[in-house]
């Protein structure tokens, strides 16, 4: 029997070794990306995240302090992070994607301790052309190698929405908050 299936066994072992090696070296995608929309609560490890809304403008104030003025636009995305699990995760990565480009946030997100939630804004600086189809990504990384959860929230901005928002609010002042912690009720 071994003689008959031997070469299949070798092939199977080689495949398993290849998969293992790829996973170990990080060449495999190691992110479980899920999609969500505005208002939809999505789970990461010990926390949930929900995007409440967004606004744009060219002047930015953060917690009533002037931050800057831009030649492009600021996009402020309001999110609520609630930690209902047992331990606050320390390695969250928030970013943005649009038209195949990736965007970094100005300040990182604050992840609350167990039993608390926090409503706060994250800010991107981008060209008005990248507003349509903008997606905010939240990645929660485990302290060791793992298949980590990522939530991609499509803000649902069509080209028409983007044009209207740009006409209406391009000179607006965006006022953001880093929020305060509240007990989850």
């Amino acid at each position: 029997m071994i003689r008959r299936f031997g070469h299949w066994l070798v092939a199977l072992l080689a495949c398993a070794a290849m998969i293992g090696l790829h996973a170990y070296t990080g060449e495999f995608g190691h992110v479980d990306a899920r999609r969500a929309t505005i208002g939809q609560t999505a789970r990461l490890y010990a926390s949930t995240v929900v995007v409440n809304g967004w606004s744009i403008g060219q002047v930015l104030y953060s917690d009533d302090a002037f931050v800057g003025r831009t030649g492009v636009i600021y996009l402020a995305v309001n999110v609520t992070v609630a930690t209902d699990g047992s331990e606050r995760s320390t390695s969250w990565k928030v970013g943005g994607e649009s038209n195949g480009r990736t965007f970094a946030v100005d300040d990182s997100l604050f992840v609350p301790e167990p039993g608390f939630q926090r409503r706060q804004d994250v800010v991107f600086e981008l060209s008005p052309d990248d507003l349509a189809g903008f997606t905010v990504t939240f990645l929660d990384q485990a302290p060791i190698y793992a298949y980590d959860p990522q939530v991609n929230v499509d803000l649902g901005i069509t080209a028409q929405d983007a044009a209207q928002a740009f006409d209406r609010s391009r000179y607006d002042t965006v006022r953001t908050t880093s929020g305060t912690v509240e007990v989850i009720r």
Partner: protein
Amino acid sequence: MSERRRQWLAVAVTGLLVLAMVVGWGGYLRARATPHYVQVPPGAVATPEQGYDMPMRLVSLTVTPALVTNREVNYAQAGAVWVIAVVDYTPPPEGGFCRLHLIATDGRAWSSIDSLGYEGERVLPTSCSAKPGEGTPRVELIYLIPETAATQLAGLASSATAYRGTEPFWTLTPAG
């Protein structure tokens, strides 16, 4: 025993060996990756920080809605309370270090908040920065937790939950 039966037996034995290895390794890796909290007797000295030899003792664990500093009384948010842990430690020659989690009996863990989390200053230091014969080897760690968790507190344990090992996570419990 026929040739065919002997081959099947070899396959079965190999399969069982593989299964035993997988179960054994899986169990060991799981035990290594899961923090195993063990409470020390009330007020007893233990070394909670993994791989760092600094004996510590939890003197008291106080739950209060108001945190008094030299500047004002900081009231906790609605539904939350402060927990003040006073810890004595014996610093090693290179100086002290502590980052302890407050652990609840259901496994929830809170990290201590730094002095930016409230207005004013407290009397005791908030970090284990003393060296032998230099500074006060007593620290006050402050936590903010939901008040519903206040009756479920187990004590203080290492915050290094990414640490891999099978030794227990010693959990300091308050004296008295």
